[in-house]
């Protein structure tokens, strides 16, 4: 039996490795994606274009404008001269925010009256706009406290002191690299398994496999092992790139990383086999894999926090293995997460793996008869 499985495994590796294009696709893209997307997948907002319209001739308006110019968050500031230019600047997306200072700004402040400062923001990018409005609020807060100091008004006696853990310098790559390790392992593990059986069905070689002495379980094992080996090798590659190229610290235990990686891959391969046993053609297998993959990636906490979702959808994500794996990889990279935290996330993946693998095996046998 072991001999038969081994020959099938060798055959599977050859099928993937023999074609130079498939070979290139297995090795190249994950590395390439890692290099590009690690820098791209940032939700920081910096260096955005803003515009300032200062209709005030007094010194206060000028002081406020120079504080905006001095801020490290705004590197490109356009100066408008007329209110009619505001619509053009925002409509054409040249400015995410227009700061509009009215003509009575200095006069009102001198008269100790509140002066209003208009921020006009592009709601087509409301998330970025909110963050930029936050920067403006901070600048105005600073401006106000300078005013109050000049007037010798006592400033509030409590203060909020913030500290950022796990990523004190808020480097983008520290967040994106661990998430990408999880995301990129998913797509390869899934497609390799989903396509391996479908290709044989489409080309008619599956019938040859069935007349061979291999039993259904042996075929499943033979199809699983290559995907597993490729997945482990790729994940290792990406972790190494993360640590040595991107210099993201890996604080946790390597042993825990590999245990959870193995469990995760089994859960993904189970889904791949499941799709594979249903699909008659490669197109069906690819589309089936996508129908699983796109929601699984989008609802994993990578693009947006799971806590923001409606409650019923949060319950649904409990069945999503990517969700747990991202917590594990991030925890091991940045937080030195202890074994109990890791295992709290490994066992749900193990349950998913058992369910998907056994139902795939059942379906496989069922459809072979």
């Amino acid at each position, binding site marked *: 039996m072991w001999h038969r499985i081994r020959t099938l495994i060798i055959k599977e590796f050859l099928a993937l490795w023999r074609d130079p294009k498939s070979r290139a696709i297995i090795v190249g893209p994950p590395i390439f994606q890692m290099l590009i997307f690690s820098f791209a997948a940032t939700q920081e907002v910096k260096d955005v274009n803003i515009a300032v319209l200062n209709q005030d001739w007094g010194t206060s308006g000028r002081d406020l404008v120079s504080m905006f110019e001095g801020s490290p968050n705004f590197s490109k500031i356009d100066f408008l001269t007329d209110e009619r230019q505001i619509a053009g600047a925002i409509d054409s*997306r040249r400015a995410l925010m227009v700061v509009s200072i009215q003509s009575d700004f200095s006069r009102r402040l001198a008269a100790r009256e509140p002066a209003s*400062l208009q921020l006009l923001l592009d709601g087509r990018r409301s998330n970025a706009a*909110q963050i930029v409005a936050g920067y403006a609020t901070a600048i105005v807060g600073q401006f106000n406290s300078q005013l109050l100091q000049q007037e010798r008004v006592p400033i509030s006696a*409590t203060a909020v002191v913030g500290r950022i853990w796990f990523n004190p310098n808020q480097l983008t790559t520290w967040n994106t690299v661990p998430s990408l390790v999880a995301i990129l392992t998913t797509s390869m593990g899934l497609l390799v398994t989903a396509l391996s059986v479908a290709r044989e069905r489409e080309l008619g070689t599956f019938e040859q496999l069935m007349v061979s002495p291999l039993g259904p379980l042996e075929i499943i094992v033979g199809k699983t092992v290559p995907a597993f080996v490729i997945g482990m090798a790729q994940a290792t590659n990406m972790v190494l790139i993360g640590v040595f190229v991107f210099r993201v610290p890996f604080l946790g235990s390597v042993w825990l990383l590999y245990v959870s990686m193995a469990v995760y891959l089994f859960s993904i391969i189970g889904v791949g086999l499941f799709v594979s046993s249903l699909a008659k053609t490669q197109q069906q297998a690819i589309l089936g894999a996508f129908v699983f993959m796109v*929601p699984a990636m989008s609802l994993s906490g990578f693009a947006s926090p799971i806590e923001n979702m409606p409650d019923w959808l949060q319950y649904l994500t409990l069945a999503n293995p990517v969700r747990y794996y991202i917590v594990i990889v991030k925890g091991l990279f940045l937080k030195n997460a202890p074994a109990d935290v890791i295992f709290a996330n490994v066992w749900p993946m193990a349950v998913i793996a058992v369910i998907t693998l056994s139902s795939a095996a059942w379906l496989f046998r069922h459809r072979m008869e």
Partner: protein
Amino acid sequence: MAQESKQRAWLRRVIGLVRKEILQVRRDASSYLIAGVMPLLLLFIYGYGVTLDLRRIPLALVIERSTPEAETMLASFRNSPYFDVVVTHHRANVEDRLVAGTVKGVVVIADDFADRIARGETAPIQVIVDGSDPNTAGLVFNYVQGVWANWLDIASIERRGTVAPRQTIGTVVIDPRYWFNPDVRSQNFLIPGSVAIIMTLIGTLLTALVVAREWERGTIEALMATPMGRSEFLLGKLIPYYVLGMAAMGISVVTAVQVFHVPYRGSVFALLVVSSTFLIAMLSLGLLISTITRNQFAASQAALLTAFLPAFELSGFIFEIDAMPRPIRLITYLMPARYFVSSLQTLFLAGDVWSVLGPATLALVAISTVLLTLLVRNTRMRLE
């Protein structure tokens, strides 16, 4: 006369191949999956699931000593719609929760908080946020400051003298206005962006498989044995998938407006122009991948890599292009999705703003032309 019959034969061959493709699409149920189920599934995900608006973020509040000040602060946090507050009295056990990710932030009110206020010293409130998710960390910090400012106002009204009132008279008051999206709903820009993702998937994934499939099954040789030329072959492959793509586009836009209540302020004409140029670029890319790889596994991975992931990550759909490093920002100019996402966001929320749509359409036409040229050059109607 001969010229005319030649043209008719050409047309007949195109129609014949279109019919064959349509039959193939209709016969395989998985085509319905991508044209019908995928758009709805994606809209559903981005309509309900992917939202950047914080709600009920788990936050731990450490009150080292219970005082009236700490209690009113707790009440302020409990009243905030943004936080789900857990209270403890020691900071040690919440630090583990931050590691496990079960809370996203910790607010510490030290045991000398009330004493310091009474003595007139600065009484700091410490906030620890989970930096492994920088976006949420930043928002949590901002909202904690909001709750704190609120508490300060209430406290200063209740017990004048104890906490110095925040001076508002004679200072600058901010008046923010969000154009096109006054309620600041992140769905309003995420859903138009997800339409671009749907179009990318439909445009490239199916076409990436069609030529590769003919090569793998060997049916391409049968096609080569017919009098069919390059133009008939390519048109026969492009037309059915163009129709399929535009149909999915229609379904997506109607669902976005009717189900998810995203406003649509542009014209149908502008939408047709922009989405047609984008779709042609995507279809050409898909067929080009298919022609080059001749292998469905490699083709699907290549489609994922060159179309789907860039549309997700390099288009400005979720991640801000301005915040990317310069070399990557330059790469985004080559991505059709970049132009399509900004055009869709503008068409949905702002209307026909030609200062956005014009350059975007031109860029899409240029990219389509390059891809179509490459496709024609790489299509060979004979075996080497």
